[in-house]
C-alpha cells in the first residue's frame, strides 16, 4: 500500500488546478486519472467541437492562454494541448491509466482502491467532473431496437449516424450544436425542446461571455442567489464557439430547417409523446435572456465599456411552429436515430463514504464535503456561478486548498 497526504481523483481542469494549489502549499499529493490528462475531452466529445468559452476565458492558477487569438475558440485538439501544457508546466504528480474502484474511511484516513493498487491518504479531492453519466429518460427502454439511440457523449460526427431522420432530445449547448451539424449534413433533424438558457453569442458588439465576465455575473457566489438548488440544475447555455462568432438559437435552427417540438415525455409503439409546453419554455427562455441583457445594459451604461459598445437592442422572440407537434411517429417521419442531449449527473458509485443525499448528490458546503478531509471540485455552481467552467476552478482551488491545509494542520496537532 502506498501513502500520500492528499489524493486528487481526476486530471481535468479541476484536478490540475487543485494539484497546482497543493504544490504551492507544499502538500504532498497524487492525482489519479482513469485515462490520460483531460480524459473526457479526449474520449467523450464530438470531432468538430470547439469550446464555447473564448480562449482568454481559461485563467487557470499559474497558467493561462498566451496566444495571439484571445477571442477565438479552441478546437478539441487545442483544448487537449492546453491541458497537456498546463499539466507539464505545473509538473503535476499524475498516475495515469489508474481507475479508482473505491474510496472508504480507514481510521482517520481514507483508503483509495485503484486498478493499480491501494493508496492511504489523509484527504481526498473529488475532481471527477459533473458529466459522468448521461441522464437518459426512463421511456428510452420503451423504444424498439430498430431505433438507434446514443448519448451526446457517444456522438462523433454525421457519418457515424445512419441515413434517415434524427431526433435530438435536449436544446442546450450539446443538443443545438449536434442538431445544427446534422441538419447541415443533410439530415432531417427534429429537436425536442424543454427548458433552456437562451443567449446570443454577441451583444452590443461584444462577446456575451466577455460582457458577463466584466459585469461580474460569473463571480456571483452561492450566497448571492435565492434558490441554490435551481441554479445548480440550470442547463448549459445555448452557445457555440465558431470562428465566425455565430449565434445558435431555436430561431437559427428553424431557419436552417430543424423542426422544434415539445419536451419528450414518453414513448408508446415507437411514437414519442411530446409535451404541449413548448410555448411556455420558449417564453421563459426569452424572458430570462431579456432580463440578463437588461442587467448587462445597466452595467454597460455605468462603465467605460459603453465607449466601445453599440446601442442597446432587442432580440427577436423565439418563433413558434404554428401547431407544435404533440407526438412523433418515428416510422412515419423516417426517424432512425435518437440522440440524448439531456444532460449528465455525477457518478459516485465508487464513493463508500456516507456523504450522498437522497437524490445521490454530494452533501457539501461550497465544495467542503460533509466528511472530514473530503473535498469536491468542478461541480455546477459549487462556490460561484463559474465553478464548473475552466475559468472557474482557480478561485475554488485556491479557497479549498487553504481549507484543506488548515484541516491537515488541525488533524496533525490533534494527533500530536
Amino acid at each position, binding site marked *: 500500500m502506498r501513502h500520500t497526504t492528499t489524493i486528487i481523483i481526476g486530471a481535468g481542469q479541476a484536478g490540475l488546478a487543485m494539484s497546482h494549489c497543493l504544490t504551492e502549499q507544499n502538500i504532498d499529493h497524487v492525482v489519479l486519472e482513469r485515462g490520460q490528462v483531460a480524459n473526457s475531452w479526449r474520449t467523450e466529445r464530438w470531432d468538430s467541437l470547439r469550446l464555447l468559452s473564448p480562449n482568454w476565458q481559461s485563467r487557470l492558477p499559474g497558467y493561462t492562454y498566451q496566444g495571439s487569438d484571445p477571442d477565438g475558440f479552441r478546437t478539441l485538439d487545442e483544448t487537449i494541448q492546453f491541458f497537456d501544457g498546463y499539466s507539464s508546466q505545473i509538473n503535476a504528480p499524475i498516475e495515469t491509466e489508474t481507475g479508482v474502484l473505491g474510496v472508504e474511511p480507514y481510521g482517520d484516513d481514507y483508503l483509495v482502491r485503484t486498478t493499480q493498487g491501494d493508496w492511504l491518504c489523509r484527504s481526498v479531492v473529488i475532481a471527477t467532473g459533473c458529466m459522468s453519466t448521461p441522464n437518459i429518460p426512463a421511456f428510452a427502454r420503451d423504444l424498439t431496437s430498430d431505433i438507434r439511440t446514443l448519448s451526446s457523449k457517444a456522438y462523433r460526427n454525421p457519418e457515424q449516424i445512419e441515413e434517415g431522420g434524427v431526433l435530438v432530445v435536449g436544446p442546450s449547448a450539446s443538443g443545438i450544436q449536434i442538431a445544427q451539424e446534422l441538419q447541415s449534413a443533410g439530415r432531417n433533424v427534429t429537436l425536442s425542446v424543454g427548458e433552456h438558457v437562451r443567449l446570443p453569442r454577441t451583444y452590443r458588439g461584444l462577446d456575451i461571455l466577455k460582457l458577463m465576465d466584466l459585469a461580474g455575473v460569473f463571480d456571483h457566489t452561492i450566497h448571492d442567489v435565492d434558490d441554490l438548488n435551481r441554479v445548480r440544475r440550470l442547463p448549459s447555455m445555448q452557445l457555440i464557439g465558431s470562428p465566425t462568432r455565430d449565434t445558435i438559437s431555436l430561431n437559427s435552427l428553424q431557419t436552417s430547417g430543424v423542426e422544434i417540438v415539445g419536451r419528450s415525455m414518453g414513448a408508446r409503439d415507437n411514437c414519442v409523446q411530446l*409535451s*404541449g*409546453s413548448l410555448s*411556455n419554455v420558449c417564453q*421563459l427562455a426569452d*424572458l430570462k435572456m431579456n*432580463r440578463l441583457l437588461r442587467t448587462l445594459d445597466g452595467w454597460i451604461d455605468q462603465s467605460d465599456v459603453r465607449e466601445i459598445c453599440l446601442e442597446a437592442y432587442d432580440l427577436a422572440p423565439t418563433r413558434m411552429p404554428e401547431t407544435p407537434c404533440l407526438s412523433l411517429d418515428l416510422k412515419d417521419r423516417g426517424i432512425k436515430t435518437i440522440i440524448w442531449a439531456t444532460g449528465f449527473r455525477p457518478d459516485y458509485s465508487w464513493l463508500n463514504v456516507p456523504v450522498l443525499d*437522497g437524490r445521490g448528490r454530494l452533501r457539501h458546503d461550497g465544495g467542503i464535503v460533509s466528511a472530514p478531509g473530503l473535498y469536491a471540485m468542478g461541480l455546477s455552481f459549487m462556490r460561484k456561478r463559474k465553478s464548473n467552467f475552466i475559468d472557474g476552478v482557480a478561485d475554488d482551488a485556491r479557497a479549498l486548498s487553504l481549507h484543506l491545509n488548515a484541516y491537515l494542520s488541525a488533524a496533525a496537532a490533534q494527533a500530536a
Partner: protein
Amino acid sequence: MQTETTNTTKNGVNVDALLQAREILEGAPQAADFIWKASSEWKGGVHTRTEMNGFFGLGEEHKRKQTFVSETDHPEVFAAPDSAATPVELILSGLAGCLVAGVASVAENRGIQLNSVTATLEGDMNLYGILGIDSGTRNGFSAIRVKFDIDADASEEDIKAVVAQSQKRSAVFDIITNPTNVFVDVAC
C-alpha cells in the same frame, strides 16, 4: 406544518408557509406523496354530481371543512337539459384556477402587488372525434388558449415572467400538456 397567516402579504398568499413546506418536505420525501380524490354519481340523463371531500397527504387522510360539489351536464344542442357546465368546461375552470393561483403566489414571492387578474379561456374541439365520425380527429381539445389581463404594480416584462413561471409550476398545466396513465376499473 400549519403556520399563522401573516398580514404582511400583498396578495393574500402565505408564501412563507409554502417555502417552509418545501424545506420540510425536502427532508421528508414520503410526506410529499398526495392522493387527490373525488366520487361521483349519475343523476340521470347526462347529468353527474361529483363530491370532493378528503385527500391523502403528509402521511395521513384529510377531511375538508365541507363537502365540495361540482355538477356536470350538457347543453341543449347536445339534447340535454343544460343544468350544469360540461366536463370540458370544468377542465378549463381547473386550468384557470391553477394558473391564477400560481400567478398570485409567484407575484407574492416576487413582491408584486396585483390589483386585478382576469383570465379568459378557450378550448378548440372538433366534434368528429367524440361522435366517432373521423378516427383521425381526437376527442379532446386540439388547442387551449388562455388570455390573461393583469393590472399589477410591475413592468410588462415582470408580469409576463410571473405568468410564465405560473405555468412552469402548475399541476393542471402539466396534466393537460403531458401524457398521464389513466387506469379505469369496474367493481365486480
